[in-house]
């Protein structure tokens, strides 16, 4: 994989092989769009419970936010990390960012306590900011160990190179 051109086979090529748009594709296409139609009908058929405008605003909005904001920002972060992180800890930093970022994203509404009911102590019962820090701390320790291992490997490799002259 390293340093080699990345070969990616896409739908074009598969289509060229004459397999992609065969009967199975058309059957699943039909079944899939029937399921989509059921969902659309259900949303429009329950205007009081599920305002179609509000549902589709969120559905399309999440699509746009993901493609236009979230992923470009992540790509920028990934580029910056690759550019500035030392080679021996790059993987550890990437792992830390991915795992920590996803856990933080999930925990966001918990830490914000947006759903906390004052009169119900059993609902969101923990100090989630504290707990998130504990989880992130564990992830940091694991990634630190990973980085330490990489650093030792790198040091050993350099030492052996120097010995060889």
């Amino acid at each position: 994989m390293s340093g080699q051109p990345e070969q990616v086979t896409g739908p074009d090529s598969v289509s060229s092989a004459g397999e992609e748009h065969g009967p199975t594709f058309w059957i699943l296409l039909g079944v899939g769009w029937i399921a989509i139609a059921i969902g659309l009908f259900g949303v429009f058929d329950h205007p009081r419970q599920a305002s179609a405008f509000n549902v589709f605003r969120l559905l399309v909005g999440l699509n746009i936010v993901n493609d236009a904001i979230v992923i470009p920002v992540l790509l920028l972060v990934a580029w910056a990390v690759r550019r500035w992180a030392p080679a021996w800890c790059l993987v550890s930093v990437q792992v830390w960012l991915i795992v920590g970022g996803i856990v933080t994203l999930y925990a966001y509404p918990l830490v914000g306590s947006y759903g906390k009911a004052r009169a119900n102590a059993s609902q969101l019962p923990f100090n989630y900011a504290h707990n998130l820090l504990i989880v992130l701390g564990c992830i940091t320790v694991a990634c630190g160990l990973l980085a330490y291992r990489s650093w030792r490997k790198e040091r050993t490799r350099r030492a052996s190179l120097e010995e060889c002259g």
Partner: protein
Amino acid sequence: MWDAGRCCAGALVPGLSDPTDGGVPAPPDRSLSLRRVVVQMQRFGMGGPDRLRHLTAPFEARAARTVAKFRHRFHSPLHSEWLAAVMGIALGVSFTVCFLTGMVDYLAQNPPTWFHLPVHPINLYRVTEGIHVLTGIVAIPLLLAKLWVVYPNLFSYPPVHGVAHALERLSLIPLVGGALFELATGVANITYWYSPMPFNFTTAHFYVAWIAIGGLIVHIGAKLTLTRAVVSGRHSGEAMPAVEATVTPMVPAPANESSARGLSRRGLLATVGAAAGVLFVTVAGETVAPLRRLALLAPRNPVIGPQSLPVNRTAAGANVIAEALSPDYRLVVDGNCRRPRSFTLDELRSLPQRSAGLPISCVEGWSAAASWRGIPLPVLLAIVGAPQSSQIMVESIESQERLYANSIIDPQHAADSDTLLALELNGETLDLDHGFPVRLIAPDRPGVLQTKWIKHVVVL
């Protein structure tokens, strides 16, 4: 398998092998491009063909070159079809499990006449709901990583090439939007954060699940060939032998590019798995008892609450305190029975009692088992002379205009001796927040249908 139209690898226009883009070869022209529109317009006599072609060709060429240059920048080995296919398989499995368990849970909560969960095993609803929520949480890192991996394929020129491809790409809107919608609203619901959802959660979540699963089915159809190749080992992340002759290198990395640095494809898979594992371990304890101590990010702890059991709606929140504590409280049993009557709390306590260990299982995914004691519903129905196989409705003290202020008990549950009108929980009189003076507890029913503060039992 998840990335259908996003994976339009190498969809460049013929004759645009720009020296700056590495001389990328182009596939056959099957586009619905401007040029085709021009041809159609010619047929209808809407303009001079040569002139129109002359006018549009530069724009078309420029667009194709821009897209090609942009895609050329994504030279990380992590943007690969192999990774997309493997993640697609995992997502396909998790979303299918989520969809099927979600169907069961929705039907259990909003039962039509033709559906009811069996009374036994008593943990069936608990298991399906737990699997539904936990699978959804585990799918979060999978979905985000998958969308990141296939992101470059969002950009292709021409955007569609044929009706089938157009329909396939169109299905990505319901697929991606639906998947994000389901996971986002699911997390918002289990954390009781309703303000971003200006709609009824269960209704919207149910029908958008159909939209998302429909998009997934179309996508599976489009990606079946590629996925089979990955599963059978014919696709190693490089060119797929079966179609090698037609492969277009999407992102040839420069020879001196440091793409070897950082995470490998398998490394990213392992990292995504680790993120899913961390989420599972820190949340699952709200329903999987052995993991309770690790449930740092669970919205519930199954032993925190009045009488060591969580509560969703409190007595204060339901505005029932005065009536529930009133000395004039009576449980009225009437409807289609021979001896309708009402019972004081002392009379209820003097009736035959039974203990049962039954779980409370909530749609938010938490569940907890407890020891309940009360009057078996069949005993009460026999006292009032209700016919066999009756359907029962129980009504709460709550305003009947509130959602779930009453619930229907199907004949199978009504005839089961584990279905109790409970007076005690874990050896103590029911706490007010748990439904004092009388609440329903039955096997395999969603928590919202275990009606609390019961004042009226109607034999239907």
